[in-house]
């Protein structure tokens, strides 16, 4: 007897080698779920091949907003099993899970079957072939929809929307294939059903983290982007390219990352808030340019979407291991800003806020996202408008005694822009005096170092430096950052429902350190768990270097590509409490 539970969420995996169209099935399922009033998150796991490699669309649907993956998948449907063993570890199953397989495509890989999941055979290929122009990816779309209790109506709408321009024949054959899958599912007992809400909110957004970062940048005032493609950051640039001209901006495709960072600096020197986006290897190449932005006090924003490292690493998989280079990668004493988005949706806020910080402090600011957030698509409520805009301290009518790098109390000096009469100066990576002229004097070096440090360390970051949630007085604090925040958040919520209280501190501002705010956030802690997706514990070391952590500190960390799941946080905390 199988328990059909109305879960708060359902997790689905649609599997098939590249070209089978499972990503299309996943996207359509996500949109159909939105039409049915649900929220959802879709991530993708793909191999390195451009076409034909193993692929899976991984979805989690729920009646509440979804920010992370669940511990296990409820339903896995495969069009074929080519290369599936290579990502099996990323699709954990349990004995409650259901695997739907086409016997024509061979046996379920042993590593998946070993989970004890119930296996049901459906002739997916034959069902597709029974429909004129039918495709297997549409059959599994109907199949999965029926299994989780979605009606066909939203699917039919999405098919018309996505395939309408291919003609009626394409729409009809897809609908027929979906129908065939839908009918086939009636014979299968499903382990899960979704709670389809009556309250179908209009106006929800479907957005990826990379789009969200681009949108946040645009909303913050970015008007120049220099671009060099790199996985998994390219979509930030591809989204910005057609959207920038709508607000008077432009994007230049550069010849390499050395060019893209320095083009952005040149454009910003000209007065346009500027940005580039990259991933680990590109960030390594940009380091010298970022130092130039710090020294010349030219605002610039770098969105870095992390992937597995070092070197070329694992370009298509997520990891939180560019923290060290982002914080410490510059030569010399080079205070700058490093922030991290804490969810797909937060890529909007954090990027917009970071544009504001870079412009206000006239320095380089790195936003850290990662492959998981960047390439995940999510359904969100329309985000609140936020007021952070690029606002640079500009001197538009310089007096005769104007100096570019005046030593001010805040450390921020009014900047003239080209075209302003009597404001001419030379920006320089050489150490300089307040006038901007090269200097090797101890006094000038000291004063300019002090000023550049002061403007960053004494800036008012408000409450945005961290997301602090949960029980204010709990002696258990979980410290984390970036995409891992969401597994911790959900883990703590599950514990709370069992009466175990904890506090989440997800740090958005990774550099500079704010010891006063940190002390307040962890005061009274007896147990601190530090959670991150890194083999060496980069975040733990950053915390150790900058902060005093009270009580016992433990690290829960793992390298990519395996995502940290909420259940692991629950288990870790429970085990610790038992000791």
């Amino acid at each position, binding site marked *: 007897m199988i328990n059909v539970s109305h879960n708060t969420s359902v997790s689905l995996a649609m599997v098939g080698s590249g070209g089978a169209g499972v990503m299309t099935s996943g996207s359509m399922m996500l949109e159909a779920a939105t*039409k049915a009033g649900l929220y959802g998150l879709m991530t993708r796991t793909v191999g390195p091949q451009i076409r034909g490699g193993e692929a899976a669309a991984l979805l989690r649907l729920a009646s509440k907003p979804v920010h992370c993956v669940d511990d296990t998948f409820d339903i896995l449907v495969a069009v074929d099993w080519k290369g599936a063993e290579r990502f099996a570890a990323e699709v954990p199953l349990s004995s409650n899970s259901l695997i739907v397989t086409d016997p024509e495509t061979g046996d379920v890989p042993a590593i998946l079957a070993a989970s004890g999941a119930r296996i049901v055979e459906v002739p997916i290929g034959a069902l597709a072939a029974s429909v004129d122009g039918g495709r297997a990816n549409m059959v599994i779309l109907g199949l999965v929809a029926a299994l989780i209790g979605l009606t066909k109506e939203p699917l039919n709408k999405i098919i018309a929307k996505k395939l309408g321009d291919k003609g009626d024949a394409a729409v009809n054959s897809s609908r027929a294939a979906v129908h065939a899958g839908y009918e086939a599912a009636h014979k299968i007992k499903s382990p899960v059903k979704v709670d389809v809400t009556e309250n179908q909110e209009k*106006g*929800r*957004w*479907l*957005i990826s983290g990379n*789009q969200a970062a681009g*949108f946040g940048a*645009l*909303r913050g005032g970015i*008007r*120049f982007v*220099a671009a060099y493609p790199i996985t998994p950051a390219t979509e930030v640039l591809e989204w910005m390219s057609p*959207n920038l*001209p*709508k*607000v*008077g*901006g*432009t994007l*230049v495709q*550069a*010849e390499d990352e*050395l*060019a*893209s960072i*320095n*083009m*952005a*600096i*040149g*454009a*910003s*020197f*000209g*007065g*346009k808030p*500027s940005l580039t986006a990259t991933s680990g290897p590109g960030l390594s190449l940009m380091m*010298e*340019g970022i*130092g*130039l932005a710090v020294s*010349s006090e030219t605002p610039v924003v770098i969105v870095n979407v992390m992937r597995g490292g070092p070197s070329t690493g694992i370009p298509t998989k997520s990891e939180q291991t560019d923290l060290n280079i982002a914080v410490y990668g510059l030569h010399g004493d080079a205070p700058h800003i490093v922030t991290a988005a804490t969810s797909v949706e937060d890529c909007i806020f954090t990027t917009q806020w970071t544009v504001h910080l870079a412009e206000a402090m006239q320095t380089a600011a790195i936003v850290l996202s990662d492959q998981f957030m960047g390439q995940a698509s999510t*359904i969100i409520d*329309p985000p609140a408008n936020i007021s952070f805009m690029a606002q640079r301290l500009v001197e538009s009518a310089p007096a005769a005694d104007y100096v570019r790098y005046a030593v001010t109390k805040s450390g921020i000096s009014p900047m*003239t822009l*080209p*075209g302003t*009469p009597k*404001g*001419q*100066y*030379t*920006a*320089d*990576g*050489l150490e300089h005096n307040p006038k*901007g*002229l*090269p200097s090797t004097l101890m006094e000038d070096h000291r004063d300019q170092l002090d000023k550049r440090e002061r403007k960053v360390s004494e800036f008012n970051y408000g409450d945005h430096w961290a997301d602090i949630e949960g029980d204010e007085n709990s002696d258990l604090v979980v410290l984390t950052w970036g995409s891992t925040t969401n597994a911790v958040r959900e883990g703590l919520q599950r514990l709370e429902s069992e009466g175990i209280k904890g506090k989440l501190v997800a740090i958005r501002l990774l550099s500079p350190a704010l010891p006063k705010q940190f002390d307040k956030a962890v005061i009274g802690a007896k147990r601190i768990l530090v959670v991150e997706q890194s083999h060496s514990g980069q975040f733990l070391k950053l915390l150790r270097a900058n902060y005093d952590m009270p009580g016992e500190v433990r690290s829960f960390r793992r390298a990519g590509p395996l995502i940290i799941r909420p259940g692991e946080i629950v288990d870790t905390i429970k085990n610790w409490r038992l000791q």
Partner: protein
Amino acid sequence: MNEITKEKLKASDYKSNLKPVWCPGCGDYHVLLAITQALAKLQLAPENVGVVSGIGCSSRIPAYTNSYGFHSIHGRGLTVATGLKVARPDLTVIAAGGDGDGFSIGGNHFLHACRRNTNMTYIVMDNEVYGMTKGQPSPTTDPSWDSALSPGGTGLSPFHPLVIALASGANFIARTFSGDVKGTTNIIADAITHPGFSFIQILSPCVTFRPDQKIWKEKVHTAIVSETDDPARAARRLMSDDGFNTGVLYRGHREPYRFSCGEEKGDIAEIQRQFVV
């Protein structure tokens, strides 16, 4: 600018009062003079001029001008200049630097700046040596030139900047000699005025590490063939180039780099509609 009420700007109005780090007798003094004279010839307002460089002796030049200068990092002057020009098409942008900065560490940017054909001028003061690091062979150095870093010479064929510029699509290509201030002034003004990416190789001797270059003033000569707008003819001329022909080699008609900048209207509401399901 109102020509009646404004006084005519002189070359000295484009010079800062910072004393150059260059050695006495360095060819770059003459290049600085020629740049300021060219700007005066064109009567460009100093605040509307951007002078951008990388690193090296000649790359110190922005601070010696009265303009919005950017002394950036080694090899990247062209990229900073490109960003500035694309963001601010209203400005006159001049990138300047040396042979090591432009053809070695910045070589890739040189190719792509020629290809991109952004409306700006690139001046390379070529002395066939790394001067700031005290005398190492550069890409344009003769293969047999002896140095501590490459004893007996590099044995490598020199980089030919004009050939590369032509092959990569620069829209204006010229060579001058720093000692010919008048000729250099005219060619810089010509290059600034010509649309697209203009490249000028200025033979600018290093009296300290390449005293053998003193002879350059006798070796340079005005090219006997007049300029062309035909890349094939220009290429044939370069095949018999002795490296000391001066004057404009090529003046093309390629459209400068275009970029799509809409109006600054900030209609975010319209943009975010694309996310609504």
